[in-house]
């Protein structure tokens, strides 16, 4: 399974949740598969999906799912200790780990080689870290949503991208409709 197949499978589970989605092709794929006002698409700023998601989860009570990638987490490794030490039980970090920088041409990441993001997250102090196969991602999210505990899910999948259009929505429109969804 590749990332877009995971997103298709989990779309019905996450569509009513607040979702912060990683820059580049992941956001393009989610936008094409199931655009929702509850989705915040990152159009730039690689690496900050988990930080934005944590800030959002700490600021209000609704559940927040940050969809991140292995390359983006590697870019912002400092996020994992911050997450571990500021527990928000309404926060789920889904790291779609395809072992590659998908948006830039599928160059390999270290997460696809010797580095285990699940082990790093645990070493940083994250308490509920789940590594799963791509096929089990939907169940892992359902479990995390039911569990009411901050959870880090590392979903191991194959490298590859679906061909989806670039998001042309204005960033202020994305942000404004998202904030209205947060307040709704």
């Amino acid at each position, binding site marked *: 399974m590749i990332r877009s197949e995971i997103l298709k499978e989990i779309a019905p589970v996450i569509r009513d949740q607040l979702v912060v989605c990683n820059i580049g092709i992941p956001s393009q794929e989610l936008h094409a598969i199931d655009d929702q006002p509850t989705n915040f698409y990152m159009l730039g700023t690689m690496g900050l999906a988990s930080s934005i998601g944590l800030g959002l989860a700490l600021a209000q009570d609704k559940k927040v799912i940050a969809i991140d990638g292995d390359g983006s987490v590697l870019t*912002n490794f400092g996020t994992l200790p*911050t997450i571990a030490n500021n527990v928000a039980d309404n926060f789920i970090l889904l790291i779609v780990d395809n072992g590659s920088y998908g948006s830039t041409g599928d160059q390999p990441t270290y997460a696809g080689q010797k580095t285990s993001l699940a082990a790093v997250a645990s070493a940083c102090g994250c308490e509920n870290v789940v590594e799963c196969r791509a096929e089990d991602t939907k169940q892992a999210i359902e479990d995390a949503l039911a569990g009411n505990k901050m959870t880090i899910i590392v979903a191991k999948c194959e490298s590859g991208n679906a061909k989806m259009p670039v998001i042309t929505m204005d960033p202020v429109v994305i942000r404004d409709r998202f904030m209205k969804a947060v307040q709704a």
Partner: protein
Amino acid sequence: MSIHSKIVDDLVANDISFVTTVPCKQLAGVIDEVEARPEIFHIPSNKEDEGMGLCAGAWMGGKRPAIIMQNTAIGVTINTLATLIQYYRMPLPMLISYRGELREPVACQVEMAVHTKALLAQLNIPTYHFHKESDADELDTILKYTFMCNKPVAILTDASFWGGYGDQ
């Protein structure tokens, strides 16, 4: 009242309740004060761009944020300021220790100091420079301005403002 308390009083009076900090010797008193206030959730960050991500999320979640950092962070956060805070039009007061100005003992700090205002100007970021303690009288107005216009705003505080570096 100490200048640290006065600054944090202004944050609280402007309903700022989510503050991220990266450590700085000059700002240590303010950071201690932020940590001590029950009205503020203090979340230290490991790098300033990470902190700006946290602030963006907190603001979308309904809390007014602020970031406290050194001016060297401008070099770290230009992409985040342009593609997140400015692109999505979000307010972000940045209380910045302006290292490398008069009374600076560490020569390397001057290397970023000489770029700081130029970079902020290039980014069209409203910038205020506190040099004397009375300059902080404007902080309340600057914070109101920040949340009026939904922009990142820089407040540079130099060594003279903080009373020098002591024995450093």
